[in-house]
């Protein structure tokens, strides 16, 4: 299922948080909703999920105005927290039932997910006995157990050890493969870069950058070529540029210039020739350095 927000506006008092935000998150893909602290990510998520209305604009599901009775959302909020004093299975079943599952289906799914996330042994324990990272895994179950169409994960990797992060990655990939639209909101750019097909960088209440991540990167290429090999020093002397060990960054000013550089590097026996692409981090910093 594709989720599209179109021209969202929202103000709190005199503060205008969203000033015409638009983006589309497609089913079977991961989408990165990025922005600095206070940019309006959580507000956007809450409007998408129908927690409160926007002042203007629409949320569309597969091109139609969204019907919250039909579109299921799974949500892992950045501010985690469940019922510390209640039994894990009991509260997970409760949340799954609130999302529309029957008691039996909820119990079955919760048990399956506890096993999937290697938490089966804690099923009957109170939540408060778990470590922070394990509590987060439990909370993830509230976002996926009811098999939602759209999964929104806000900083899903914070606080997870590398093994658990790997487990979560596998789970997210499975869900994407099952055709879910997965929306990431995170400041950990490496994860977003790894997963997200498209991104939207919020700044000043609008999408400063939005679209396919590869296309964005290509568009923001800085006309630089990176060459690795023994010829690095030689190339630096020929075309200008600074070599570091066996690497050199060369500037070009046109497509012809780039091809010429690549040919020269190939002739001299370079091991690796690549166009320098900005990282998501670079793109983010460039897009959000002015205003919030």
């Amino acid at each position, binding site marked *: 299922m594709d989720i599209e927000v179109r021209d969202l506006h929202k103000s709190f008092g005199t503060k205008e948080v969203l000033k015409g935000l638009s983006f589309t998150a497609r089913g079977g893909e991961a989408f990165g909703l990025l922005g600095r602290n206070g940019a309006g990510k959580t507000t956007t998520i*809450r409007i998408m*999920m129908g*927690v*409160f*209305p926007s002042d203007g604009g629409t949320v569309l599901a597969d091109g139609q105005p969204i019907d919250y009775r039909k579109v299921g*959302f799974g*949500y892992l*909020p950045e*501010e*985690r*927290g*469940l*019922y*510390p004093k*209640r039994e894990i299975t*009991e509260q997970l079943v*409760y*949340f799954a*039932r*609130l*999302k*529309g599952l029957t008691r039996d289906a909820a119990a079955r799914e919760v048990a399956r997910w506890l096993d999937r996330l290697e938490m089966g042994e804690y099923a009957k324990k109170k939540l408060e006995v778990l470590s922070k990272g394990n509590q987060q895994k439990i*909370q993830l179950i*509230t976002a996926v157990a009811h098999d939602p169409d759209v999964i929104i994960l806000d900083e899903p990797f914070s606080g997870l050890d590398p093994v658990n992060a790997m487990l979560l990655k596998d789970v997210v990939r499975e869900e994407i493969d099952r055709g879910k639209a997965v929306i990431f909101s995170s400041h950990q750019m490496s994860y977003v870069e790894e997963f997200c097909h498209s991104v939207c960088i919020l700044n000043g209440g609008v999408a400063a950058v939005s679209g396919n991540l590869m296309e964005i990167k290509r568009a923001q290429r800085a006309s630089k070529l990176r060459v690795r090999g023994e010829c690095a020093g030689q190339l630096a002397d020929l075309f200008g540029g600074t070599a570091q060990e066996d690497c050199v960054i060369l500037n070009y000013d046109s497509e012809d210039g780039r091809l010429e550089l690549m040919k020269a590097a190939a002739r001299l026996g370079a091991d690796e020739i690549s166009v320098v692409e900005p990282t998501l981090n670079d793109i983010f910093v460039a897009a959000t350095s002015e205003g919030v």
Partner: protein
Amino acid sequence: MKQFTTILGFEFMNYLRNKAFIFTTVVMAAVIGIVLMFPRFASAAEIDISELGGEEGVMALETDVPGVKEAFTAAFPDYSLVTDMDIGEGIRSGAVQCGFKVESLEKFSYFVADVELYDSNYAIASDVLREMYRTDRLSRLGVSPEEVGQVMSFVPEGSVTSTGVDRTKNFLYTYIMVMALYMVIVIYGQMVASNVASEKASRAMELLVTSADPIAMMFGKVIASGLAGLTQLLAVFGSGFLFYNLSRGDWAGNELVASLFDIPAELLLYMVVFFILGFFVYAFLFGAVGSMVSKLEDVSTATMPLMMVFVAVYMIVIVSLSSGGIDNPLMFVCSFIPLTSPMAMFARIAMTTVPLWEKAVSVVLLVGGVIAAGFAAAKIYRVGVLMYGTKPTPKAIWKALTQK
């Protein structure tokens, strides 16, 4: 609706699994059971309860007037009389509790260490001496002692027919019901407020607002707490009723206890109606207040204004009840306002005759009040739960209420 029942079940179990809840319920039921079964235990242990509390005292009497000692001995069966003691000395040393100095039939003094709230000794002595004085004077006028006796002991024949309610009988359970309503609202109202606030503090709210409809949430929570309260009351009063019936025979002589379990069915119905509606009006408001605070510590401060209103109502009703003047204008007005009517109208129905239309208007207004409070609470809740750090100003509350 499905969400509502899910929430109701989850929240209700929350109370039933609470160890403090179970403990207080069991202890209260047990205490009531033990008190009501006391006559049984007592008779098994051969203690005569009628003797309890009426311990014998010693009274000093200083008099030269003939006949006074005999008359006082008859009039004060609970005291043993001593005549050869200085009254002041006796009271100081604790040998006697009180004493009378009768100089003549026209003049006497009463000495006592502490005047108790219901000390009737003075009045009894006064009656005794007055009767002796009258008998004495009449016999001097030539009336025979038999005639004097007849005249003095004459009582006109009469009877009391009450077409309304008997306040003397209803007073106790009206008092208990008002008291019970007060306690249940204070305890459970705070519980609802803390319950909502703790979800906010633990941030479970972040997930809840995206999972459940605020109206289902608010009604589910409040009705669950109402059911928990009713369960507790049923356990306590049920145990009272059970144990009273088990030892009914032993309480036969005790009108106070008997009147407590002898509530007319109609009044019981009104009690249940006002109790339930009154509970919900307050529980919804407490829930709304709970959703406006960010931290659990702030709950008691935030609920203060609501609590003040409630305590004021309670005071008005209790003072009106114990002064006997239940039909005052204040009580009349209070018996129609939804926040005050549960206590005020019930007290009026129990203690006086209230026209049917007044009862009907009061109940209708109260039902309307409950529904209005429920929806207002849900609206405040929806906005309040996402407010962190900001103070719940009247302006913010108004905005929450009027927002679409």
